[in-house]
């Protein structure tokens, strides 16, 4: 191996070798932390929406089922953003003259959709389908958190690949009975590990190899 330092190199030059390793390591560590930070993942970030819509009120106080508005969650990739018509089912009578609802009234009057700000935005190279998840025992709150407590909805999880894989590797840690999918109070400890393992068999959830295969999510 060739000589690393020129004969004239001083001690600072030699110490720089050690420093380079430390700096490089620190930079890499910083990179991993920044990449997971909410600054880049938008986790916990509340967005200003055109209407001050509160899930805490509609789900928590009024007890309206998720599927009343998100009608396609059981049948399609997208859970469905309700048309303004759905808002008007109640708000043609309730708070119909409230200035808070003017954007909704305007949307209904002019037949123009409300421009909601997207909170959960998956990258274009990731395939995601709501219907298969709810059909296999993954509840709403497992990914979305306790929506019934959120006055304005934020992203509960990072939505990063390592987060997806944490469940795709061990789905039996997170699944629940199908009757409890829309239960916001559900806790993973409501079932024992054995019961959840049995659910995995009952729901015919595929092997870890298939669930973590590249083409399962990158199609």
């Amino acid at each position, binding site marked *: 191996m060739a000589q690393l330092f020129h004969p*004239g190199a001083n001690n600072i030059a030699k110490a720089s070798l050690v420093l380079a390793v430390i700096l490089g390591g620190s930079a890499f560590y910083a990179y991993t932390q920044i990449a997971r930070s909410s600054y880049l993942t938008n986790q916990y970030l509340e967005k200003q929406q055109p209407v001050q819509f509160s899930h805490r009120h509609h789900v928590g106080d009024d007890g309206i*089922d998720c599927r*009343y508005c998100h009608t396609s969650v059981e049948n399609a*990739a997208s859970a469905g953003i309700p048309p303004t018509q759905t808002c008007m089912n109640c708000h*043609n009578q309730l708070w119909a003259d409230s200035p808070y609802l003017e954007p909704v009234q305007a949307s209904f009057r002019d037949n*123009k959709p409300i421009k909601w700000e997207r909170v959960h935005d998956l990258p*274009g190279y990731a395939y995601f389908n709501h219907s298969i998840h709810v059909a296999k025992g993954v509840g709403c709150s497992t990914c979305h958190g306790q929506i019934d407590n959120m006055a304005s909805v934020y992203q509960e999880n990072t939505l990063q690949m390592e987060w997806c894989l944490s469940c795709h590797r061990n789905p039996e840690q997170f699944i629940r009975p199908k009757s409890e999918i829309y239960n916001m109070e559900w806790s993973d400890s409501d079932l024992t590990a054995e019961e959840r393992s049995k659910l995995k068999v009952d729901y015919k959830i595929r092997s870890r190899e298939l669930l973590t295969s590249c083409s399962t999510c990158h199609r």
Partner: protein
Amino acid sequence: MLTNKPNAGKKSMTFQGKNVLRFAVLVFCVSFFLVGTACRYDMQDQPRYKAYKESEFFSDGKAMRDFPEGTVARGQLNENKALHTGKKENADPNAQVETTTDELGNTIVSSFPNAIEKMPINVTKETLDRGEQRYKIFCMVCHGPVGKGDGMVVRRGYPQPTTYHDDRLRNAPVGHFFDVITNGWGKMNGYASQIPVEDRWAIVAYIRALQVSQNPEIKSGEADSTDKAAEDNKNETEQTGEAETQEPAADNGGAN
């Protein structure tokens, strides 16, 4: 390296050439890092439409297109009139209906000449379970858990719907309920876009079950045995209105 003594470069020109090369590699690495991370967002936001995305191409700004009027999707001709409208084949839109006026001045329709009397689907246990589930999603918010019109949205101030449990609606044909879910009635909007046809019929079946549950027909023999059961503090009857009224008595007996 950068810490070489100043006279190092003077000794040989090739060494200075190496320095320039190393510097170029460093610049390349840094710029690759900066440019490379920017590439990531191109792949994240690919130039294609996802559901509900905004479009600059269409004048209404919607990437999701509405069907042209009159479009019939394959298998959705909806030619079975009874199934898709709840109305008779020979329905007469001008048929006369009997109406009364309630104390609030609302017109109450009490005859339904065009609505079909018989369920157009087979009703099984699964149908009723499905109907119960869908009722609790879409109907319970206003009509309440058993259909008395005391749902949470009504308690918040929405005009109260009529109860299912009066003679008028107990005797109303199933087609009427289907028509109301599909097209709305009074203050209620139609739910055709939120509930598929089969689910609407399942809900109708469940409403019928609710009506029976709140007005159980008790034959004289059964009533006797129920009374006897209450006396014996055995409340093993079905969960009917009758059984509920007897529960306090049974509880008292248990407390003794």
